[in-house]
């Protein structure tokens, strides 16, 4: 595997993977739409993934890694599906391996447009892609690279809060579980999948080595920055009420925040040996 194209390379995860694969001597091209990656160690090409014509303009690669996904916008469900369909057709036509980055949210008991677009995408890929791997990362985190990002990960927003304010608002009771996975572990899993053509047409969950209550994650970040923060637990109904008033708060996404996250790492551990980074150590990269 010598060449890779990353769809959505200006995202936190996409930009990390692009640098990681470039470091493994893979020639990387990354697509972006509105946020051009600055001074990357890969070739950045603008591409609206809804345009098949533009995607097919980009030529042939050994593998297509699909991160791009809309989390906002009224048509995000349909647009995410359309982008994925184009990407599947593109990889099938060019004989490339297709790696789709889904989300741990597919296991949640919610019906957000974002989650449903991931569920429907997975169904489409398993039915139509000739050579695919689907990866569902749980709460990814890691260092922010010197890029202009499409958007920060929730973990970075939390770190900003801990650093700037003496109190951190926590949605609900803070006892819901997260399984944060370090971005290096996710990158390594993608890389290993690409290197092993025999491992194909699989769905892998990936999370960190431990499940942590959200309150515990806040405490660990506060410890890492030697800060004392007060966790202010705000009842979920306050956010749901706000969702009815303020349109940009998605009600179903809000519900997803308090779902317990559990990644079945055994799904890929049967094929690869990747030591998982505990959050206590990994959070020093935040």
């Amino acid at each position, binding site marked *: 595997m010598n060449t890779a194209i990353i769809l959505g390379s200006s995202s936190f995860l996409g930009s990390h993977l692009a640098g990681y694969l470039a470091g493994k001597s893979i020639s990387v091209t990354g697509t972006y*739409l*509105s946020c*051009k990656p600055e001074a990357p160690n890969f070739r950045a*090409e*603008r591409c*609206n993934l*809804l*345009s*098949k*014509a*533009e995607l*097919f*303009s980009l030529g042939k690669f050994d593998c297509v890694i699909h991160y791009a996904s809309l989390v906002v*916008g*009224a*048509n995000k469900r349909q*647009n995410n599906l359309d982008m994925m369909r184009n990407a599947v057709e593109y990889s099938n036509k060019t004989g490339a391996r297709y790696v789709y980055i889904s989300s741990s949210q597919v296991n949640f008991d919610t019906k957000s447009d974002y989650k449903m677009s991931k569920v429907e995408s997975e169904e489409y890929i398993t039915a139509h892609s000739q050579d695919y791997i689907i990866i569902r990362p749980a709460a990814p985190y890691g260092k922010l690279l010197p890029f202009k990002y499409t958007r920060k990960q929730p973990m970075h927003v939390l770190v900003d809060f801990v650093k700037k304010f003496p109190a951190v608002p926590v949605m609900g009771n803070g006892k819901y579980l997260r399984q944060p996975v370090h971005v290096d572990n996710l990158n390594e899993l993608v890389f290993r999948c690409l290197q092993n053509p025999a491992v194909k047409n699989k769905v892998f969950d990936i999370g960190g080595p431990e499940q942590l209550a959200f309150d515990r994650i806040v405490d660990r970040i506060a410890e890492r920055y030697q800060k004392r923060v007060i966790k202010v637990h705000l009842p979920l109904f306050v956010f749901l009420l706000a969702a009815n008033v303020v349109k940009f708060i998605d009600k179903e996404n809000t519900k997803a925040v308090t779902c317990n996250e559990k990644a079945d790492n055994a799904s890929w551990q049967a094929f690869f040996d990747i030591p998982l980074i505990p959050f206590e150590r990994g959070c020093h990269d935040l």
Partner: protein
Amino acid sequence: MNQKLLVTGSEGFVGSRTVLHFKDRGWAVTGIDLAIAREIPGVTKMPLDLRDAQAVRALEGMDFEYVIHTAADQTSKTILANNSAADENLITCLSRKKKVKGVIFMSSSLVSTSADIQYTRSKILGENRLCDSGIPFVILRPDMIYCRDEKKMIEYSRMIQKGFAVVVGSGKYLRSPTHLDDLLAVFELVLNGNRFPNKVYEVGSPEPLTMDDIVKTLALSLGKKARLIHLPLPVAKLLFSLKGGLDVEQLATMELDRVSDLQRLKADFAYAPRTFAQGVESFKKA
């Protein structure tokens, strides 16, 4: 023997100049539009509604090898339906004609942004329909096409002469204005070389400018100073919804930066468009 060209939208700003440009260079040009505004000796013109599938069949009996498709609805409330029907009918008809060597499809720089409005959706559908048709194509996405006698330039010049200029929104959003002659030069490169690489190309000035700087540059070339008056977007929306003649959805995307990425155009056609400062300088010579 003369080469034969069909220009759709022949009475529009780009279409009418395209017709004259190629007619002056010895091409046999046919122009179609909803209604014919001006007959030109040596040019065949025909009123044709591309939304009417039956009427479009008339093109099958006409003699042309190349098509420049500039016709598009940018202002009505049914942009998506109008443009989709027109593109579908035209491309279906062209697919049946054996003699068509290539199509230049005029898309828009808005497709290279995150704008998700009727107009961009219609352009993406058109791009994808063309991509699936098997007809050799070039898709161009120019930004803010201007020349000396373009409506916006005339309006701004008039205001500047009076010592002011009204700019919608903050004026800080970026644009990559495309001089009409640069667009026509790209048309020529494609058609004269019969080069249809089935790709999407952005066209625009190499150095993006804020809207404020565009007006200031124009004022400078006129040897005037103009006070900039920023019209808040909600006020502009209200005014234009009363006045009509502009897609209010497009107005809402005004603050999105439109920075042309010229790397594909330079690589495949070795063409570099002029800067806006060079463009307005050329007004003096015209």
